[in-house]
């Protein structure tokens, strides 16, 4: 299990946070994703084998961009 913090750019409305959560949660092995529009951060809990690249892709799929990844 690992916990990762993503800073997301381009969130501008409430449905954005929901879209990102929905997209992230489609990644197999991803346990939890909590996105806050207020802090522009997504806090993700996932199995160790889930790559950061996959998370970036999931955020991009929903139409947003990851600008920073922290552990």
């Amino acid at each position, binding site marked *: 299990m690992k916990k990762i913090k993503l800073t997301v750019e381009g969130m501008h*409305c409430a*449905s*954005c946070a*929901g879209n990102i959560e929905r997209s992230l949660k489609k990644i197999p092995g991803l346990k939890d994703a909590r*996105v806050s529009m*207020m*802090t522009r951060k997504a*806090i993700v809990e996932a199995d160790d084998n889930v790559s950061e690249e996959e998370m970036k892709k999931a955020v991009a799929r929903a*139409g947003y961009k990851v600008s920073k990844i922290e552990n």
Partner: protein
Amino acid sequence: MKKHTKGKMNHNHEQTPEEQEINMWKKKLVWAWVITIPLIIVMYILPLFDVMIEEEIMRFIILFLSFPVVFITGFSTLKSGFKGFVSFYFNMDSLIGLGTVIAWLTGVLVFFMEIENYAGIAGMIMAIFITGKFIESKARGRAGAEIRKLLELGAKQARIEKNGKEIMVDISEIKVGDVIIIKPGEKIPTDGIIVKGESSVDESMISGESLPVDKLKGSSVIGATINQDGVLYVKATKVGGDTFLSHIIQLVEEAQGTKVPIQKLADKITSIFVPAILFITIVTFAVWMYFSGDLSLALAAAIAVLVISCPCALGLATPIALTVGSGIGAKKGILIRKGEAIQTMKDVKVVVFDKTGTITKGKPEVTDVSTGKNSEKEILLLAGSLESLSEHPLAKAIVKYCEEKNHNKFMKVTKFSALRGRGVEGYVGKDRIVIGNRRLMNEEKISLKDFEKDISKYESEGKTTMIVSKNKKVIGVLAVADAIKEDSRKALAMLHKAGYKTVMITGDNEPTAKAIAQQVGIKMVIANVLPEDKSNEVKKLQNKYGFVAFAGDGINDAPALKQANVGIAMGTGTDIAIEAGDIVLTTGSLVAVTQSINLSKATFKKIKQNLFWAFAYNTIAIPLAIMGLLHPVIAEIAMAASSITVVTNANLLRRKRIG
């Protein structure tokens, strides 16, 4: 001193993402209206003065003026909206984008067929939308101001001595053990211990405590606090992600993403909102076409539905109030860790306080020694020898007292053991020494008769007694008192006034506990509780009275904090037990407990108000739009107003006094 708090070290101010967003909308807003105002003049004002422009020319003017508003200032909105149609991750831009583009296209269609020209309206809708977004982003920025301040609190640079010269280095270069020099008025860059110098330090940004704290050599200091008047040499003990500030930031950021249960329905609606509205729009259009056969009317209703519907009010209702609430809290040293606690708090009837370290200072001192006919030296030496092996705060108080009295040549102890919640035992030479409370003496069947009078007296004064016995015979009694925190009385009076039942829980015996409880005004006391039984006692209270909040120090009381419906973990200096509490207080102040209760209730009330407005708005406005009763421009104004209302209402939380 105020002027220093801005931080000298951060001259070149970079724009925060919030400021960038506000500025982006501002720029668009200006351009949108520069074009939209002439558009309005041409469309509505000139006809008032009987200035008639030929229909053909008018069409071109409207199309020409509204184009840049919709497609240039609205470019990013359209792009993000139409991306939604491709990826099926719809957002509110999808609605606005579709609404304005369809409206604008009628301006083209009008050249080929009989249709009402909505192109001008498209421009107006986009301009109002941008205006709404601008106001909302400003209000949102204000809502997050405190939290952002907290995130930006850390120092960027630190001053160190190198080759006899003082130089500034980037904070990331500081390692544990480095000595940092902090001049008056500067920010202390990281957590550490003072190795040279003395000063007073303003810790208000961390603890909410407004008075500066005096610091001497050996005192620990917290990064991001402000050195007031002396030069300090501080050895870094924690850097980077390990610092107190980093922990708090992490906690606050995580809390922002937690959900308040009441939000669930709103979240569910938000997640299907846009596709649902798209469906409703199609149905609205079809039904209007079928019954009226008028394409223009059908389009007007469809556009109104598209632009009036915005998930923002619903989706923002809770997070925005939570942000404002936790921001207000953070400023006062109250950290809301779980959004759920805010909702639970409103049902709390009983507040349970741990005694030691919560109501009292948690730094016990020996106040009396009763020796009977025995020598004080022997009592203290034996007590000190055993207690020096224990980590208990009471033990430390005794050892400290022995050292002060110069009875510090402690003897060798064998077969030592600490008896949790009762005392200690061990052998000094061949003598079996047992030191502890009444309960332990009863278990050991040791008679207290010669000392009963003194013991009762100490207990009635609220002191903890440590009975020293040698070979099953009491040789002396030490009384230890733990002073009550200055503001405990006031905090409890506030709670009583608000109608809460308060309970004190402690491992002390009944008379001692009652004496303390009486001093602070608590009527119900649960005494003689072993640490591991505290959570059971909480459970019993829950069965009897309903929801219970527990305030305690997070380290010993972790199970009780978990068992309680709301666990309030009290901080003691730099050690805060983050994991244990739903709400974490960085200060040890009991007033902060009361404040955190008031803040939670006020925040939850705002959440409820916001959700009410958001639901009311959507359930009234959308049907009106479907019925074709709202002009698309009015619809757009209403939409912008709805999300601004929610954010502004949350900001009003600041006016609330939380004590």
